[in-house]
């Protein structure tokens, strides 16, 4: 069965600093990979996705993620965070031919001045 690990439960970053959120997946073949963001009381918003091709994918709000097959990772990055980036971030995978998303437990991002 596929699984997703987000090892960092909570990360605190200063406004303007760079950010990297970790995501590792367990699956025998290359899955489809996603990052979603959830603000308090809001639904999940898609930041970016990887299906195939270029392993560095660009998303909305200045986020990017890099797929590394050798490390089974899909880490999310942003060069300079803004206070509005404070939210919960979820990595998710779906196996080709299987429609259900498997989510990690999420990383809560706090931004300090």
């Amino acid at each position, binding site marked *: 069965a596929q699984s997703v690990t987000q090892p960092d439960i909570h990360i605190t970053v200063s406004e303007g600093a760079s950010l990297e959120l970790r995501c590792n997946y367990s699956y025998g073949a290359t899955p489809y990979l996603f990052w979603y963001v959830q603000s308090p009381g809001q639904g999940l918003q898609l930041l970016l996705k990887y299906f195939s091709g270029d392993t560095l994918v660009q998303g909305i709000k200045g986020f990017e993620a890099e797929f590394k097959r050798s490390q089974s990772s899909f880490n999310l990055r942003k060069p300079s965070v803004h206070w509005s980036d404070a939210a919960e971030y979820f990595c*998710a995978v779906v196996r080709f031919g299987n*429609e259900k*998303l498997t989510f990690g*437990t999420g990383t809560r991002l706090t931004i300090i001045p």
Partner: protein
Amino acid sequence: GAGVSQTPSNKVTEKGKYVELRCDPISGHTALYWYRQSLGQGPEFLIYFQGTGAADDSGLPNDRFFAVRPEGSVSTLKIQRTERGDSAVYLCASSNGGTQYFGPGTRLLVL
């Protein structure tokens, strides 16, 4: 509307009662999904519809949970004899292949 909508946004019920949660997918999306998100956890898959039929209901926790999508658009998640452990945010998503787009969720509290 442009996105997935869910009603009600909040629902408080008593243990043992029956509840229905509604999802309106993005117009034209053939696939519809239900997930449940408990506090401090990521969403967990419940059921997936392709058109009117449930293509995968392997995530439904027990027979108290049931979902329908009779006309291939709106879906209703039904929970019978609610228990306190059913308290969670119930999320709906729709897709036309590939990316799933989520609604704001229904927060269910069972007292």
